């Protein structure tokens, strides 16, 4: 920015407005005044002393505008219904699904408390649904059918893996503490038993999602798990032994491997997420 300022004579002439100034001079002066506070203050002083007529006119206009400006100024700070960060992690479309997840967790806890131990053997129902519990939220996180603004979102710069991971994180932040508390309350399972399987399922859903779409992948996995758990339980009256073994703590390396594979596949296909 230039350190040169307009001369006092120029400002005087401009303030009074009687002398015809060349158009280019006026133009240059106004351009300078827009960016230079000291010169504006000299102009203001000048108007006050030299041109009382203009000062009066400006005051009248201001008095007329003031009520409207006040009204506009009051309306401007918008009533904020929700903090801005919430919508950057969750879409309103996901809320019912997260609520459903919480309800399912609560029901599993209830079942855990009242169900006959013979049905589930030594596996707690919470433990059986824990691996696929985050999938409901994940399915809703990037879904054409469940998110009304999906078409708009899909064309924006943030669409793609970063946004998907953000929303998945939000789902996990809601679901995992719920499970943690549940496991602690019932005392039937340790965090290690369900944490890795549920993370592994989530990463697999995201990885498969790059091929068939996240919603389809998540629902597919959840249904598959349901079939594996529920159908034998229905038929035989108890949860199959093999399944109970799968969720034992000594199977953790297997789940860890699945998690690593899922994460690896997500990283390898990171660009496929931008047009899902």
């Amino acid at each position, binding site marked *: 920015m230039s350190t040169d300022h307009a001369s006092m004579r120029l400002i005087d002439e401009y303030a009074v407005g009687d002398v015809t100034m060349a158009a280019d001079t006026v133009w240059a002066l106004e351009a300078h005044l827009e960016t230079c506070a000291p010169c504006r203050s000299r102009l203001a002083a000048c108007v006050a002393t030299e041109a009382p007529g203009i000062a009066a006119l400006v005051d009248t206009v201001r008095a007329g505008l003031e009520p409207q400006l006040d009204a506009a100024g009051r309306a401007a700070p918008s009533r904020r219904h929700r903090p801005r960060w919430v919508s950057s992690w969750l*879409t309103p479309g996901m809320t019912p699904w997260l609520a459903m997840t919480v309800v399912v967790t609560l029901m599993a806890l209830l079942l855990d408390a009242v169900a006959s131990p013979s049905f589930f053997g030594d596996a707690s129902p919470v433990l059986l649904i824990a691996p696929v519990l985050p999938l409901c939220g994940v399915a809703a996180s990037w879904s054409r059918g469940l998110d009304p603004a999906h078409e*708009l979102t899909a*064309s*924006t710069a*943030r*669409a793609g893996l970063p946004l998907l991971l953000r929303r998945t994180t939000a789902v996990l932040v809601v679901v995992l503490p719920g499970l943690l508390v549940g496991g602690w309350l019932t005392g039937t399972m340790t965090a290690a038993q369900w944490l890795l399987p549920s993370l592994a399922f989530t990463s697999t859903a995201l990885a498969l999602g790059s091929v068939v779409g996240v919603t389809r992948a998540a629902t597919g996995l959840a249904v598959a798990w349901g079939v594996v758990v529920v159908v034998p339980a229905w038929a035989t009256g108890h949860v199959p032994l093999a399944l109970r073994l799968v969720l034992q703590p000594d199977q953790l390396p297997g789940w860890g491997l699945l998690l690593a594979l899922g994460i690896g596949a997500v990283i390898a296909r990171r660009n496929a997420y931008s*047009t899902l």
Partner: protein
Amino acid sequence: MTPTASAADTAPKTYAWEIRAGGLRVRVGRKKMAVDGLDLCLGIGTHGLLGPNGAGKTTLIRTLATVLRPTEGELELLGTSVGGMVDHRALRRRIGYLPQDFGYYKRFTVREFVEYMAWLKEVPKADVPGAVQRAVERVGLADRADHRMKTLSGGMVRRVGIAQAIVNDPAVLLLDEPTAGLDPAQRLRFRELLQELGRDTCVVVSTHLVEDVAAACSDVVLFADGRLVFQGTPDDLAAAGGPEYPGDSPLERGYSALLRNSGQQGGTW
């Protein structure tokens, strides 16, 4: 408040056309080729995309918005090749898109919704409030900015859609049937906005209203069965028709003449 020019605005352009498609084919579903071998070059200006229902206008616009991936052929937007497994992030920051039926969050206020879209489009955080206010004012919704979306009429929702499309000052603006649901006065105002935007932006407006094209577009692209039938000025379109063709205005007659000559079967409708 005037928007200041950024480095990206003043950098020299290194591409000849904002949108350039060569042999573009886009498949929808299993076997339908909605865009079938399209060659098209569009520069700065307002381009009206005309065509009968089912011509593939929406598919083309969605492909240009990078929502759909081209099946075959090449597509360059702002000098960047689109398609395949590439990151479209930088390109998408400079695209504005209004879908034909766009969903929104009913409980958001107009300002919250446009702010949310600005966040998704990676508008710099400091510029968001100003950009949102400008966009909302441009579509004449400043007095409704703090109303919830569900309290708005259909035409107003449409205008919110236009506001979110222009909030990031896009270099390519894609509007799919933007005038549906606008009343005549709003439509006039919208045409002015289109002309204004077309001065420094490549605007593509899909419409089935020939009069929109006549009033607001500098260029007409006629599209039928996934192929380009005609590209030229509205005057060229009017010149293509004669009194023997059906239509109430020279443009409509030109439209029917070109469609008939391209072998489009009109059917009973």
